[in-house]
C-alpha cells in the first residue's frame, strides 16, 4: 500500500514551527529517553562551559612574559653533571629535581643550558575543553630543549631526564627572580610521573571582588613543561620491550635485563607533544562535535575519579581525546575510520564508551592505526593502547588495575545507556562514582613501610617509584588469589590506589611518600566470594598435572592440602575458616599478602573497612538458614491445610504476606521464644471461586469467621500438637475483615490465616462505583477496597517478587535488613510500610547505575541512602520494574498519574510518595494505608533530610566513618519523648486464656497468693500476640491524637523503647468551637470586658460577637492524659 504521497502532502500543510520540532525530534533519535539524554547533555555542556576571556584573564600576557624571561636566560657552558649541580645549588637556593636514582657521582657527561628551540602552548587551554568543575585548571606551556645540549644516546639510563631536570632548575631560577613576587612557583610532577618534574606558576589570586558571580576568574596555574625535540630520539630504540635503564644492575649482569616499558614510553612521549597537538587540532577541524565529546568524556572520567595523573589511573582527558581522535581517523581496519566525523557529541561519547567497554586493553593489547602488530609479549608490563603512527603506548601511565576498572566502568555505563527505562543522564555525568564506600565491597589500607626495603630493595628499574612497584606486586598477588578463573573468580574488580605526590617548593626535595598507605579496593562476585572450599587442580599422575599442582602449591604455600572428593577425585584444596564473604576475603588477603610480600605479619599492618555495617546488625550466613527454616515450616503448614478433607471449598492458594517469609525482616524468625506469646506469621488463603458466598459484605465477613472456626477445629482434630485460636481484628465496621485464625505448632512456628473471598472485591467495587450511594459510604468502600487489594492481591505478589529477587541478588536480603534497621533507628519505621522499604532497596539493585548491582550489604546500604537522599519524590515517581515488563508508555502513564495526583492534591495531604511496580501500577498501594498517606509529607521530608545528612557524613569521612554514627537517632529533634518501661513491656508480651490480668495485678498488689497464680501459669500455654503491645499502644495514641496535635515516631516494636513526638505547630492556637481535635485551654488574654455576673450564665445573643474566641493547646494536659493511658507502662515523659 503506497501511502507516501498522502503523507507528504499532509506534512506540507503542517505549520512551520511544528515541522521544525518534528524534524529535530526525528533527527535526535527515536526513543524518548535518549532524546532527553541529548538535551540534558547539551544543558550540561552549557553549564560547565568556561568563559575563557574572564576565567583566564591575564593568562596570555603572563605566558608571553614567561616566554620572554626564559628567552633572556643566558646560556651556560657544558659542565660535568655533578659539578654543574653542586655549583648551581650552591649559588641559588633552588634544588635540581633529579629523578631517582640520583645521577652517579662518577658520570662524566655534561649538562648545559641554551635558549629553547621552541615554545608552545598545548593541552586543553588551547582546545578550550576545560570545564568548571575541574579540580585544577592549568595552562600548559612546553619548552623544547635545544638539540645542541642533547645527545642521541641520552635516552639511556635517565641521562635525558637529568639534563631535563637541570634545564628546568635553571628556568626556575630565572622565573623565581622575575615572578617570585607575583605568584607562587613550585615543582610538581607532570601527571605524577617522577621522571618529569615541571614548574607550576600560580598567579596570585585576584582581588576577590566578584567571587559569587558566575564568570569570575579561575584559580589557574601555568605549567612549564620542558620536552625533547620532535623525533630526536630514535623511535625504534624505544619500543616496549627495550631495557634502557641498565645502571645499578651491572653487578648481576648475568640476569637478562628487565624491559623498562614505562621509561621507554615516557621518553617517547617527551618527543611527541607536537604531533599530538597536531592530531587534536586536525580532528577538531574535521569533526565539529569533537570538542564537546571531549568535554563529556572529561566529565565522565572525572566523576569516576579518573585523571591523567598516575595515582588517578593515568587515563584522563588527554588520553580520552587522543583515543577519540584516533578512532575518528582513517587507517583502522580495512582503511576506514572507526567513527564518522559527522556524528554528534553524544553519539561520539557513546561510541567511545562502547569501545572502552569492549576493548579490555589490560588483557589484550589494542593497536590503533595498524593491523598485525603483535604486542602480546609486553602485556605483562601494563595495559597497552598503542598508537602505531606515533609509536606510543597511550595507556603507559595506567596500571593493570586502573585499566580493568576503566573497562568495568565503561561496561556499567554501556549497560546504563542501553537501558531505555532508566534515567541515563544523572548517573553518567552527575553522580560521583569514585567513593570507595559506594564502589567497593571491601577496602583495605596496607601499611608497608617496614617491608618496602625488604620486598623491593634498591630496584629502580620501575620509574614510577617503589610504592607503585609494590602496588603492582600486591595487585598481581591478589589478582591471582582472588581472581583465579580456575577456582572461580571471587572478585570482579581489584583496585590499587597509590598515594598522590603533591607539589613541592623549589628549594626542597620532593616529599617522601612512603608513609602514606597503599589502598586496596575489592569488588566481590557475590556468588563466588562466599565459597569456603577452593578446589584446585586434581593430583593426577601425568607430568602436566604434577606441574599444575606444583604451581598451585608454590602460590598457596602451606594452605594447599590434598583432599578427596566425590567420584574419588583427589585435588589440591584450600579451606577457609571464615564464614561471611567479607571475612573470607579478609582471611585470604591477610594470608596471601603475608606469604608473598610479608605484609600483614603484624595485625595492624592491614586494616580492613566495609564490614562495620554488617557487624552492627550481626548479619550471619546462618540467618539465611533460619529464613529457609521458616519457609519450610510454612510449606508444612500449607500441606496440613490442603490435607484437610472436610473443607467445603477447595484451597486454591496459601500465600505468605509477612517479611519473615520473604527474607526481609530485620531479625530472622526464631520460634518458640519463651519471652513472649507466639507471634504468628501472616498468610492469606484463597479458595476456588464459589457462588456460595452470600451477597453482602457483612455476611461474607461473618461467614469467614465461621469458616475460620471450622478450619481451626479441623486442624486441631487432624494434627497432633496444633493449637488454634480465632482472633478478632480491631475493626470499626461490620464490613471490614473481622477475624483471623492463629495456628500454633507445638514445635514453635505459628501462622495467622485470613480468608480471601473474591466476591467481597466485586461487591466493594460495585459500592465504589455506585453513584447513588452517599459520599461517605463510597469513600469508606474505596478505602476498604484498597485495603482488600493490598492484603489479598498485592501482598502475595510482592512476597513472590522479593523472594525471587533475594535468590537472584545474594546481597539483597541483608541490605533490606540494614535499611530497615536504619529506618527503625531513626524512628521512621512506624510511618513506612515494610513493602515500601523493600521495594526501594530492590530498586537500587535493579537500577544500580552508575555501578552494577551491589554485591555486599554495605554498598547496597550506602547506595540506598544515596538514592533516598537524591529522590525528588515531589515530581518523580519511583518505578520498580522487577519483571522488566513495563513499556515506555506504561512508564509515561505512571508519570502522568503522579502529575494528576499533584494537581488534585498540591499540598500532598493524601498522596505523598509514589511507588509503582509491575504488578501495582497505581503507585499508592505501598504508600497509603487506610486512606492516609504513609508517610505523610512531613515524615517524607524528614526521611530525605536524614538520608542527605547521612550521605554527607559518608562522603566527608569516607573510610574513617564509624558506621554506628549513621544509626544514632537525634532525640533532641522531638518535642516530647516517652520512655517505655522495658520490664513492663516484656511482661505484657504474655497473656493467658484463663488468667485475668486485672485480678493478677490486684492480688499481687495485695501481697496475696503469688504462688497460686504461678501454679496456673505453669500449666498453660500463653496466647499468641494479636499485635505487639507497643504497636497497639501507638495505634491507640494515633487514634486519639493522630492527624491532630501530635505526630509520633517510633522504631521497631519491642526494640525501640523511646517514642518521640512532635507538636503540630499549625494547631497551637485555634478559634474555639465544639469538638476540636486536641485538648485546648483558654488563652489568658482572651478575657474580654464581657465578664458578667457569674450567676447570669451565658446569654447566646450576647456572646455572638465573642464567638471567635481563641484557645491554646493544653500541652501539659495532654501529656498528663498520655501518662494516665500508659500507667506504669511508661518510665517517664519529657
Amino acid at each position, binding site marked *: 500500500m503506497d501511502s507516501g504521497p498522502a503523507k507528504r502532502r499532509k506534512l506540507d500543510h503542517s505549520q512551520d514551527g511544528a515541522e521544525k520540532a518534528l524534524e529535530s525530534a526525528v533527527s535526535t533519535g527515536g526513543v524518548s529517553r535518549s532524546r532527553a539524554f541529548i538535551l540534558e547533555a547539551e544543558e550540561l555542556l552549557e553549564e560547565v562551559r568556561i568563559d575563557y576571556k574572564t576565567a583566564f584573564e591575564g593568562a596570555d600576557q603572563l605566558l608571553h612574559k614567561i616566554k620572554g624571561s626564559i628567552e633572556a636566560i643566558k646560556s651556560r657552558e657544558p659542565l660535568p653533571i655533578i659539578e654543574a649541580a653542586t655549583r648551581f645549588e650552591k649559588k641559588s637556593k633552588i634544588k635540581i629535581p633529579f629523578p631517582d636514582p640520583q645521577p652517579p657521582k662518577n658520570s662524566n657527561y655534561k649538562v648545559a643550558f641554551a635558549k629553547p628551540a621552541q615554545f608552545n602552548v598545548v593541552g586543553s587551554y588551547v582546545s578550550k575543553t576545560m570545564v568548571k568543575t575541574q579540580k585544577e585548571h592549568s595552562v600548559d606551556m612546553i619548552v623544547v630543549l635545544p638539540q645542541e645540549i642533547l645527545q642521541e644516546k641520552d635516552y639511556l639510563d635517565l641521562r635525558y631526564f637529568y639534563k631535563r631536570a637541570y634545564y628546568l632548575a635553571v628556568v626556575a631560577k630565572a622565573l623565581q627572580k622575575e615572578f617570585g613576587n607575583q605568584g607562587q612557583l613550585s615543582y610538581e610532577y607532570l601527571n605524577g610521573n617522577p621522571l618529569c618534574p615541571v614548574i607550576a606558576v600560580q598567579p596570585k589570586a585576584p582581588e576577590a571582588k566578584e567571587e559569587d558571580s558566575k564568570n569570575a576568574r579561575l584559580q589557574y596555574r601555568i605549567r612549564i613543561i620542558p620536552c625533547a625535540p620532535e623525533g630526536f630520539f630514535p623511535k625504534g630504540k624505544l619500543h616496549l620491550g627495550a631495557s634502557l635503564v641498565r645502571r645499578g644492575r651491572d653487578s648481576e649482569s648475568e640476569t637478562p635485563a628487565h624491559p623498562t616499558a614505562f621509561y621507554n614510553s615516557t621518553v617517547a612521549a617527551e618527543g611527541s607533544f607536537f604531533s599530538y597537538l597536531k592530531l587534536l587540532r586536525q580532528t577538531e577541524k574535521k569533526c565539529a562535535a569533537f570538542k564537546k565529546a571531549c568535554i563529556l568524556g572529561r566529565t565522565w572520567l572525572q566523576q569516576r575519579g579518573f585523571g591523567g595523573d598516575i595515582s588517578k589511573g593515568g587515563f584522563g582527558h588527554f588520553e580520552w581525546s587522543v583515543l577519540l581522535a584516533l578512532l575518528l581517523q582513517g587507517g583502522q581496519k580495512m582503511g576506514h575510520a572507526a567513527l564518522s566525523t559527522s556524528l554528534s557529541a553524544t553519539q561520539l561519547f557513546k561510541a567511545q564508551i562502547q569501545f572502552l567497554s569492549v576493548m579490555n586493553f589490560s588483557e589484550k593489547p589494542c593497536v590503533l592505526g595498524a593491523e598485525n602488530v603483535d604486542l602480546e609479549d609486553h602485556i605483562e608490563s601494563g595495559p597497552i593502547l598503542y598508537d602505531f603512527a606515533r609509536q606510543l603506548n597511550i595507556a603507559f601511565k595506567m596500571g593493570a588495575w586502573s585499566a580493568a576498572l576503566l573497562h568495568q566502568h565503561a561496561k556499567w555505563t554501556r549497560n546504563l545507556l542501553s537501558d531505555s527505562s532508566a534515567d541515563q543522564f544523572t548517573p553518567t555525568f552527575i553522580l560521583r562514582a569514585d567513593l570507595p564506600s559506594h564502589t567497593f565491597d571491601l577496602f583495605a589500607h596496607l601499611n608497608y613501610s617496614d617491608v618496602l626495603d625488604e620486598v623491593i630493595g634498591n630496584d629502580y628499574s620501575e620509574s614510577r617509584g617503589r610504592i607503585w612497584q609494590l602496588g603492582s606486586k600486591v595487585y598481581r598477588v591478589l589478582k591471582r588469589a582472588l581472581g583465579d578463573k580456575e577456582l572461580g573468580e571471587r572478585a570482579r574488580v581489584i583496585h590499587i590506589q597509590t598515594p598522590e605526590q603533591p607539589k613541592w617548593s623549589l628549594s626542597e626535595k620532593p616529599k617522601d611518600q612512603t608513609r602514606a598507605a597503599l589502598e586496596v579496593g575489592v569488588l566481590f562476585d557475590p556468588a563466588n566470594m562466599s565459597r569456603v572450599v577452593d578446589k584446585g587442580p586434581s593430583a593426577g599422575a601425568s607430568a602436566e598435572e604434577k606441574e599444575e599442582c606444583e604451581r598451585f602449591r608454590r602460590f598457596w604455600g602451606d594452605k594447599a592440602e590434598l583432599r578427596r572428593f566425590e567420584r574419588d577425585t583427589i585435588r589440591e584444596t584450600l579451606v577457609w575458616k571464615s564464614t561471611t564473604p567479607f571475612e573470607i576475603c579478609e582471611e585470604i588477603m591477610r594470608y596471601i599478602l603475608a606469604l608473598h610480600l610479608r605484609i600483614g605479619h603484624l595485625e595492624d599492618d592491614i586494616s580492613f573497612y566495609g564490614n562495620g555495617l554488617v557487624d552492627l546488625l550481626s548479619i550471619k550466613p546462618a540467618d539465611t538458614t533460619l529464613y529457609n527454616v521458616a519457609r519450610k515450616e510454612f510449606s508444612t503448614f500449607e500441606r496440613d491445610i490442603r490435607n484437610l478433607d472436610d473443607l467445603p471449598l477447595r484451597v486454591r492458594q496459601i500465600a505468605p504476606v509477612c517479611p519473615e517469609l520473604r527474607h526481609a525482616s530485620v531479625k530472622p524468625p526464631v520460634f518458640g521464644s519463651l519471652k513472649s506469646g507466639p507471634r504468628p506469621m501472616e498468610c492469606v488463603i484463597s479458595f476456588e471461586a464459589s457462588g456460595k458466598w452470600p451477597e453482602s459484605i457483612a455476611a461474607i465477613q461473618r461467614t469467614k469467621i465461621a469458616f475460620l472456626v471450622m478450619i481451626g477445629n479441623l486442624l486441631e482434630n487432624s494434627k497432633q500438637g496444633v493449637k488454634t485460636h480465632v482472633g478478632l481484628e480491631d475493626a470499626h465496621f461490620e464490613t471490614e475483615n473481622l477475624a483471623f485464625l492463629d495456628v500454633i505448632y507445638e514445635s514453635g512456628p505459628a501462622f495467622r490465616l485470613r480468608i480471601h473471598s473474591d466476591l467481597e472485591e466485586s461487591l466493594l467495587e460495585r459500592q465504589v462505583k455506585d453513584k447513588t450511594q452517599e459520599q461517605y459510604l463510597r469513600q469508606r468502600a474505596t478505602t476498604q477496597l484498597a485495603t482488600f487489594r493490598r492484603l489479598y492481591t498485592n501482598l502475595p505478589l510482592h512476597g513472590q517478587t522479593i523472594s525471587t529477587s533475594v535468590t537472584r541478588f545474594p546481597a539483597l536480603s541483608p541490605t533490606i535488613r540494614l535499611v530497615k534497621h536504619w529506618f527503625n533507628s531513626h524512628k521512621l519505621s512506624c510511618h513506612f510500610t515494610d513493602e515500601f522499604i523493600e521495594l526501594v532497596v530492590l530498586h537500587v539493585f535493579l537500577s544500580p547505575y552508575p555501578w552494577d548491582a551491589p554485591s555486599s550489604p554495605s554498598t547496597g546500604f550506602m547506595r540506598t541512602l544515596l538514592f533516598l537522599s537524591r529522590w525528588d519524590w515531589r515530581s518523580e515517581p519511583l518505578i520498580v520494574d522487577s519483571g522488566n515488563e513495563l513499556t515506555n508508555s506504561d512508564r509515561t502513564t505512571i508519570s502522568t498519574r503522579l502529575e494528576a495526583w499533584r494537581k488534585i492534591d498540591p499540598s500532598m495531604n493524601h498522596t505523598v510518595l509514589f511507588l509503582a511496580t509491575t504488578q501495582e501500577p497505581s503507585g499508592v498501594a505501598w504508600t497509603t494505608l487506610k486512606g492516609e498517606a504513609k508517610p505523610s509529607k512531613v515524615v517524607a521530608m524528614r526521611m530525605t533530610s536524614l538520608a542527605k545528612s547521612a550521605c554527607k557524613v559518608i562522603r566527608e569521612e569516607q573510610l574513617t566513618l564509624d558506621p554506628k554514627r549513621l544509626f544514632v537517632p537525634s532525640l533532641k529533634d522531638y518535642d516530647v519523648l516517652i520512655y517505655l518501661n522495658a520490664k513492663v513491656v516484656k511482661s505484657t508480651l504474655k497473656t493467658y486464656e484463663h488468667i*485475668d490480668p486485672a485480678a493478677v495485678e490486684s492480688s499481687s498488689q495485695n501481697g496475696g497468693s503469688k504462688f497460686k497464680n504461678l501454679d496456673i501459669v505453669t500449666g498453660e500455654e500463653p496466647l499468641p500476640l494479636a499485635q505487639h503491645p507497643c504497636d497497639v499502644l501507638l495505634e491507640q495514641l494515633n487514634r486519639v491524637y493522630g492527624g491532630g496535635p501530635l505526630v509520633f515516631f517510633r522504631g521497631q516494636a519491642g526494640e525501640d523503647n523511646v517514642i518521640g513526638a512532635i507538636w503540630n505547630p499549625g494547631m497551637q492556637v485555634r478559634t474555639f468551637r465544639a469538638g476540636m481535635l*486536641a*485538648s485546648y485551654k483558654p488563652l489568658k488574654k482572651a478575657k474580654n470586658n464581657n465578664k458578667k455576673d457569674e450567676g447570669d450564665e451565658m446569654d447566646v445573643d450576647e456572646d455572638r460577637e465573642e464567638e471567635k474566641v481563641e484557645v491554646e493547646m493544653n500541652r501539659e494536659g495532654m501529656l498528663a492524659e498520655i501518662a494516665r493511658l500508659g500507667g*506504669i507502662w511508661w*518510665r517517664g515523659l519529657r
Partner: protein
Amino acid sequence: MPSTPSTLGDFIVLPISIPPLPSFPKPTTHYLYLRRNTPKIPIPSDSRSLFLTNCPVDSTDLHLRSLFASLVGPGRFESASFEDERKDTAHKLSPLDAAVPVNAVRLLQAHGSTNKKRKREEEEDAERSREDEAARLPSTWTRPLRKSGSTAIVLLADEKSVEQVLKACAKLPKTKKYPEWGAGDVASKVPALGSVWLKQHNRLCYPDPATLQQAVDAFSAVFARREKEAAEIAKRLRNEPDEDGFVTVTRGGRNAPASRTEAEEARKKMVERAEKKRQEMEGLYRFQLREKQKEEQEELLKRFEDDRKKLEAMRMKRGKFVPEA
C-alpha cells in the same frame, strides 16, 4: 490562674485539676467546656442534659459521675453518651443493619419492612435490640478511649440539676477549688489502663469460640430471614403493578431473580467481544493507516514537547546539570 476566663463563647469553662503521676510528676489542669444541650433536632430530654466538649481521653461514665457528684452532690447524674458512641449508632452499621443482602437493600427499603414497622413499632424495636445484641461480636477493649477534644452529652436527673451544675461551675473560679479528675474510688471501679489494659486487650482479641459461633449464628439467622423476605418481595413485585400501573421487569427464572454477578459477567463478555471485533477491523482501510501514522507523528511531537518542558522545569531547579564535586 488569675486570669483564666470563666466563659468561652456560650460555654462555661470547667477547670479540672489532674493529680500528678510517677511518669509525669506535675499537677496539671484540664479544661472542660459545657453548656446546655441544644441540638438541631430537639428531643424531650434536652432540657435536662448538658453538652460537654474537650473531654479527657480517658473519660468514662464513672469519671463524669464522680465529677458531677463533687459539683452538685450525688444522685443527680443519670448517664453520659460520648461522641464516638453516638457516631457509632449513626455511622457504624449495627450488625443487624449490615445483615442485608446487597441486591435487596433497595427492595427492602422501598417495599419491605415499612408497613410492617408501622404496625408494631415498639415490639419490633425491642426484638431488634435483642437480636442486635446477640449478633454483635464481643468487644476487644475493657475500656475505650475518647478522641482528644471530643464531646459528650450528659443526662442529669432533672432540669434543676442542670441549673445547679451551671451555677456551681460559675462559682469555681472564685473558690479556686477545682474538682479533681478521677477523685474518690473511681480508679478502682473502672478497668485500669496501661499494661493491664493492653493485656486484657490481647486476651479479649481471642474470645471463646462458642461465643463467636453464637454471634455468627444469630447474624446468619437474621440474614437468612432478610434474604427470604427480599426474595419474596421481588417475586411479588414481578406480579404486581405499582401505583402507576407498571410491572417491574426482573431477570431470572420463575423462582428467583438472577444474581447480579451473573449479569455482570454477561456484560464483561459482551465488552470483550466488541473489543475483539474492533481490533480485527484495525488497519483494514487506508484511512485508518493514515490516521494511525498521523497519530504517531503527533505523539512524537508531543513527547518532544514534553521533554522540552521537563528540561525547562529541571533548569528551574538549578544545580541539576552540574556534576557533583
